[in-house]
């Protein structure tokens, strides 16, 4: 029950989110990966707030992260919907228009 344990859990969350972003072709899958990564950062912040002299500031930042995540989710969902409207698919691999 040390700081390291929490950090380890956070690391697993982070790696999972990154893997999601790497492997998922579904746009919402990528979005979920981002959520996981944010969640890991949040966990990290709270753990440091608990175990170090960071104090209440860590929790404040964690709160900000949560809010940002919510906002990001809303915008990303709207983007995904637009993407779907334009491409009739949610495959992010289709979104390589700028290459051509």
């Amino acid at each position: 029950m040390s700081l390291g344990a929490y950090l380890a859990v956070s690391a697993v969350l982070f790696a999972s989110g990154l893997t999601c972003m790497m492997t998922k072709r579904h746009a919402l899958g990528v979005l979920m990966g981002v959520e996981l990564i944010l969640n890991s950062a949040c966990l990290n912040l709270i753990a440091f707030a608990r175990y170090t002299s960071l104090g209440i500031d860590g929790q404040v930042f964690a709160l900000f992260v949560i809010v940002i995540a919510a906002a990001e989710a809303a915008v990303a969902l709207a983007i995904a919907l637009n993407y779907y409207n334009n491409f009739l698919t949610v495959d992010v691999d289709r979104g390589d228009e700028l290459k051509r």
Partner: protein
Amino acid sequence: MLAWLLPFAGCVVITVLRLKLSRLSAVPGWIGTGSLLVAFCLSLFSAGLWLMTSPAETAASSVSAEETPGIQAAKVGDDAAHETGYSPQRRLVGHWYSLAKFGEIDFPLGYAIDALTVLMFVLVTMISLAVHAYSLVYMADEQTESYQDHHLDHSPGETPERPGRFAHFYAALGLFTFAMLGIVLANGLLQIFIFWELVGFSSYLLIGFYHERRTARLASMKAFLMNRVGDVGFVLGMTILLVTCGTLLLYPVHDLNGNTSGSAPMALPEAFQAAVEKVVPSEENHQPTDLLPSGQGISYALLVAAGLGLLAGCVGKSAQFPLHTWLADAMEGPTPVSALVHSATMVAAGVYLAARIAPLLLPEALLLLAYVGVVTLLLGASMAIVARDLKLVLAHSTISQLGLMLLGIGVGAWEAAIFHLITHAFFKSLLFLGAGSVIHTTHHEQDLEKLGGLRAHLPLTSLTMLIGVIALSGLAVPYVTIFGESLGFSGFHSKDAIVSGAMAFVLKNPHHILLLISVLLGACLTAAYSLRLWLKLFARDTPVDPALQQVHEGPWLMTWPLVVLAFFAAFCALGGEEGLVSTLVEASLSPAPAWFSGSTDEVVSIQWTNASDRHAVHGTAGAMALAAAWLGALIAWALYGLRAISSKDLSRQLTPLVRLASHRWHFDTLYRGFLVLPILNLARHTAWIDRILIDPFIDGCARFSERFSHASQWFDEAMINRFFDNMASSVWAWGLSLRKAQTGHIRQYVLLATMAVIVLFLILFAWMPGGRAGP
């Protein structure tokens, strides 16, 4: 006060615009005449307003005109002016619009209204109105689609036809009047110059009105070019003045009461006097060699040259001695145009300007002007007395009278000169319109030898022309006065003024007595030729030509202007030199500069006169002039009226002189031989040089540059373009190869980024083991 200017401008615009009207209608003429009528009424109204607003001067002048003769008038006027606090020179000066501003130098468009301006407005609009109305009849034959020009040189058997140019005529006439009014109104030499050129241009249009005739074309071109010769001098003088004085304004801006605003720039007379005082060396250390060089780079000679340059413009416009030949040729225009050109507008502009700028003229320039005037006076009179063409007589007479005016300016009596200008405008336009009447009714017959005995047929014309002739010759009944007035027409008074000015001048400067003698001789000749003209026209028993039997008077539009003008020619100078007109003129002109009444001048040692001197000799001069005029009249009467002496015998005895005069003193030949032909030859040789030398050189240059550009083009295409093409294509290929790396797949980017992070951390740990903090 100013409101009456604008309607006239509007009328002029309408006048110009109505070119679109039908050729057949008389509407343009009526429009032009109506606009002139409105303008005339407005200017009359303004003149009345002017007199009303200056009660002191008016009272003084009227009192002096009726009761106190002599010198008292000036004193009364001065006293009145001092009592009411008015400046002796009342003048309304203002600016409308600043044309350009270069540093300190401002070129505004403005106005300067004083009594002279108002007077000139009335004069110009009246005469122009008379001419407009007169032309309604005279030019009526232009209201047709096919006008037959009888004076055109054409092969026999066919009569060339052209569309009438009635509207054209009135447009040009309106423009002409407008330009002249602009000159009168302008404040500042630049503005005067603008309208000056406008006058020249519109006179070019009018003189060349019958431009199908070769003579008319040549005459208009001659008038234009002669004026340009003078205008070169004008521009030079303006430039010198601008450099030395820094302004071209004639009068400083101030309101009606003469209160100059504090920040007003110095006007030309003051600046000029300052410049003169700067360069003229003082009395004690005066050396003759000091005159030309000066400290500031402004030499006395330069200032003299400025005056001479301005005078050259006046001389050209007023057809004076070296440049006088265009005026006689200007007879090619329609006769009403001649009346306008010779009386109120074009030639008057020169004299008017000369009087306006008289304070700027240094003694040398004035003396030269006086001699120019004298020479012109004698030349014109001698030419007039032998001329056979009716209009030519009048033209030469105009030249002569203008010379008289310039002489007046030259001897310092510019009030008298302007006075004579006004009276001359009246009687000369009267004479021209009368001549036009004769010409019109006799179907374009201008030869004096063929005309004659028309008095019975043209009673009104003959009467009015008699008035004009008497006014022109300055005749009067000696020593008879009615109501304190000497019995004489306008020309008598004004000529008396000039003669007295010349006489006073000569009395002060006895070695210039030639001036006085010439003036008297000129007066004698004037009386002679004017009376000759009238006698030849009207006094013969029967017409020589039987075709003239059916001649009768023209319609009322032709005769009424004659009557009106005759009235003014007779009575406009009522009161003589103390009369209303003369007083107004005197009140508006600039006073004599300080050095003017000073003692002796260094260079030409002229003793200048002032008004009191002139008044002192007035009686004597008047008597002398009158005697000369009566002498001339008697000679003419003897020659042509009584035929006591056969004119043929006299002319036979004086054959060389007559021939010389009738060939206009061979000035045209002289100019042709000495100026025109050499210039033509020069032009021809220059053209030859152009063709032979310069053209091949230019061609060679062009060919060389063409070859060079071909080579350059080859170099461009082969070397430079290819180099850049290769570079661009290589960059393109590189970019294409790089493009393959950009898959556009987001997941792949994330993967690579992750990989990069891992590798970076591994490198960090591998190379920085000291970063570990714990065991």
